[in-house]
């Protein structure tokens, strides 16, 4: 069973988001996503300051099996990328909600997270996918 922490928001693309105190949002892929991808071997990160529309690819995670896009769930600007993943992409597997975070962004509008799934809804999504 995949871990789904209670203080995060989620997307149907199996990304997690955490609203930080300063109004920025940290984004990564869920435990379920890393497990489905298998061992990660490369993470392609965006440039700092890059802006993205909702649905744009902002990073690519590549496992031994396949490449998979990480999407911006809302219009945003990239504040910071997790540079440690360049040498240690496996952190996404071992600690997807912690050291395996991918980018920190500033949403174009403050209420951007409200549209996303809460933990219960995401668990529901995983349960339905299992059926």
């Amino acid at each position, binding site marked *: 069973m995949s871990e789904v922490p209670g203080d995060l928001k989620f997307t149907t693309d199996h990304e997690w988001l955490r609203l930080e105190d300063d109004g920025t949002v940290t984004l990564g892929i869920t435990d379920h996503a890393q497990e489905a991808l*298998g*061992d990660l*071997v*490369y993470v*392609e990160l965006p440039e700092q300051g890059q802006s993205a529309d909702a649905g744009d690819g902002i990073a*690519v995670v*590549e496992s*031994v*099996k*396949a*490449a998979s896009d990480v999407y911006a769930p809302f219009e945003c600007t990239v504040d910071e990328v997790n540079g440690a993943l*360049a040498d240690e992409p496996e952190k996404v597997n071992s600690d997807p909600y912690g050291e395996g975070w991918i980018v920190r962004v500033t949403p174009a509008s403050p209420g951007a997270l409200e549209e996303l799934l809460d933990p219960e809804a995401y668990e529901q999504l995983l349960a339905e996918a299992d059926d």
Partner: protein
Amino acid sequence: MGNRTPLYPLHEEAGARIVDFGGWDMPLSYGSQLAEHRAVRESAGMFDVSHMTVVDVTGDGADGLLSRILANDIGKIRGTDRALYTCMLNDEGGVIDDLIVYHRGPGDYRLVVNAATREKDLAWMRRQAEGTDAEIAERPELAMIAVQGPQARERAAALLPETAREEALAMKPFVAGGFGDFFVARTGYTGEDGWEIIGTGDAVMRAWRSLADAGVQPCGLGARDTLRLEAGLNLYGADMDETTTPLESNLGWTVAFEPPERDFVGRAALERQREAGVPRRLVGLVLEGKGVLRAHQSVMAADETVGEITSGGFGPTVGGSVALARIAAEAGDSLGVEIRGRRLPVRVVPPPFVRRGKVLI
């Protein structure tokens, strides 16, 4: 639900992630694909390859048939206990399948062909055998495992009767023999030493259990693919198919043009191609920086597309990305690969990338 091998319940029990592979429910990985890969390079791993098709070709016409339908020369192993890797070609020189053939006795050959090509292979062979004294018998009751890695033979020898172990361990690469319940061959698809072991479903199931108890790592198709890619071994359907010849697939060494009087299917087409100049070649690529080469990415020289990656991925032992690519013969060595709109430089090398645990590039 797809076809299942006799070992399927054991894979399920071990918590393997199961995927469809050519109509078979097969283990992709039992946990970490990287750990499985490493086990084979450093100690010993085992693969269920029972989905592959075992076909026995026997009778007075067996020699004649195989001499005609295989591009490598069966005469090289006639009268020996050896195996031969070969392509089976169509009239245009295209590869119908690649396979291993074992000589087991006078007029007694065993072929192991790919699972995904089973039906067309059998249909083709049966058509070629019409009017000959060769018998073609599929052996669906047989299961097969590959035990691979520097410690593989030593560990697997315990499966054999005590009196047979010394003789089995003395087999040179590409030699095979029957020992107790098993047909054992010193062959594989990983670039490492090891055995492939064929027996009834029951016997192979017992073998799998006792190897697992002895600490041999079960490995799935994921690790099988990264191991064979690093070993520079072609995958049928990816690196070659009916539209490519062995000469365009880095398999010229498997085509026996000698003796000149052996008239094998595809010979005339290959001779024409050789005469005219082989237009494309299959090469190894090493990505110079970070990233992952994948199948179907374009290979570029200056501003021109000169070919395509046929197999690519991350090579865990190499510690970077490697690929096989089919490129124009005159493409030169200064190449790049287009990944998500960016051109990344690659180095052209002759495969293999890794052999017997050593990185060669």
